[in-house]
């Protein structure tokens, strides 16, 4: 957790001292789904589709202007893949766990709607076997999304979140097996979360 402590410290230093120190903490639970992780060719085309991945996200953000916040989010996702191959039934393949750390800027759009854009790093953690056996390299992930304020009670706000992210997917095992280049992967997710604002 050296990285996250370092980033949090950097964010704290970046937050202008003149602004009211309203720190926002958030926790959310959602699901992410997306485009295929890989394509393979062994007598016929094999498509490695990703299943919906439950994802837990924790975040902290600081005001950087009157309207905008700079934040850091850590997310842990638990997914799996399904291989689709002509002539065979669809098969549940290996499962995977992702850990990501993204920095983002968010600000108001209209009414209860806020935008969020950011970038960070994502890692597929090592699993027992299959394409995730050795985990993956650190991948750049770009994110965009919206948060919708649903209900506010005191310092707590219930939020609905829609997130898009983009990564260039590969794993160490795929590279070891001779796969080259990377796969564009687009993911879209929906979640519900709680924000806590500390004045």
């Amino acid at each position, binding site marked *: 957790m050296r990285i996250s402590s370092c980033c949090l410290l950097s964010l704290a230093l970046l937050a202008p001292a003149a602004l009211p120190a309203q720190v926002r903490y958030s926790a959310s639970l959602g699901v992410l789904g997306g485009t295929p992780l890989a394509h393979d060719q062994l007598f016929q085309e094999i498509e490695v589709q990703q299943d919906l991945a439950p994802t837990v996200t924790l975040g902290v953000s600081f005001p950087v202007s009157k309207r905008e916040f700079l934040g850091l989010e850590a997310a842990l996702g638990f997914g799996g893949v399904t291989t689709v191959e002509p*002539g065979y039934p669809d098969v549940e393949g290996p499962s995977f766990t992702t850990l990501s750390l993204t920095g983002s*800027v968010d600000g108001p759009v209209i009414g209860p709607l806020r935008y969020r854009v950011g970038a960070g790093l994502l890692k597929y953690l090592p699993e027992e076997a299959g394409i995730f056996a050795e985990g993956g390299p650190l991948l750049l992930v770009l994110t965009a999304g919206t948060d919708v304020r649903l209900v506010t009670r005191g310092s707590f706000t219930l939020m609905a979140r829609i997130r898009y992210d983009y990564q260039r997917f590969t794993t160490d095992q795929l590279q070891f097996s001779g*796969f080259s280049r990377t796969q*564009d992967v687009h993911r879209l997710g929906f979640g519900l979360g709680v924000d806590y604002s500390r004045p």
Partner: protein
Amino acid sequence: MSRTLLAGLAGIAILAACSDIVSPVRNARYDWRLIVAYDSAGPRLDTLSFHWPRNSVPVKLWVEDASDLKARAREGIALWKDAFLYGEWDARLVDDSTSADVIIRLLQPPPLPAGAIRMAASVEPCFGATDVDTGATRFEIVLPVRSYVFPSLPNDPGLEDCMRHVTSHEIGHTMGLFQHSPDSLDLMYGVPAVDFLSERDVGTAENAYHFTPDMVPVRP
């Protein structure tokens, strides 16, 4: 707001130039298919492929509890499981031999049953064999598939290594790799001397599990 948002979206659009992963060509392989003699207006040979159907995975292995054979079998399963990217093959040990797909015994191979085909690996100080019964038609694999591993020189210092090679080699046969590799550096060489999978072993297993099978497992 709009400037930050637009800059972020533009960044994503620029970086998201289309890229697709490129899969390797797996031509490092040997022929794994079973050559079956049959009679149709004269003796002929047929070359047939088999792999366990996806709904039979993990394959159920009953392994005789003697001389660390179970430990050797677990090592063999782990070795072969790592050959696959998408979980095409896996196996687990079961206690009840009645429901097993594969039976591995610490036993000198008995006389070959009528109609069965034997793949034998003879190494000192141990040897192994796997029998495949192609059933009434040559398009079946009668379950259970039977493998034998036997220590011919029980006090030989190289016995443990030999048992490791041969057990993994026989598990390779039970997976559907029904021929021997011509290369001595492959685990599926007729006289196995390694306890790891070569690139050809991996390529052959991957090819076998995506090649349309001619044979189906049947339980009598």
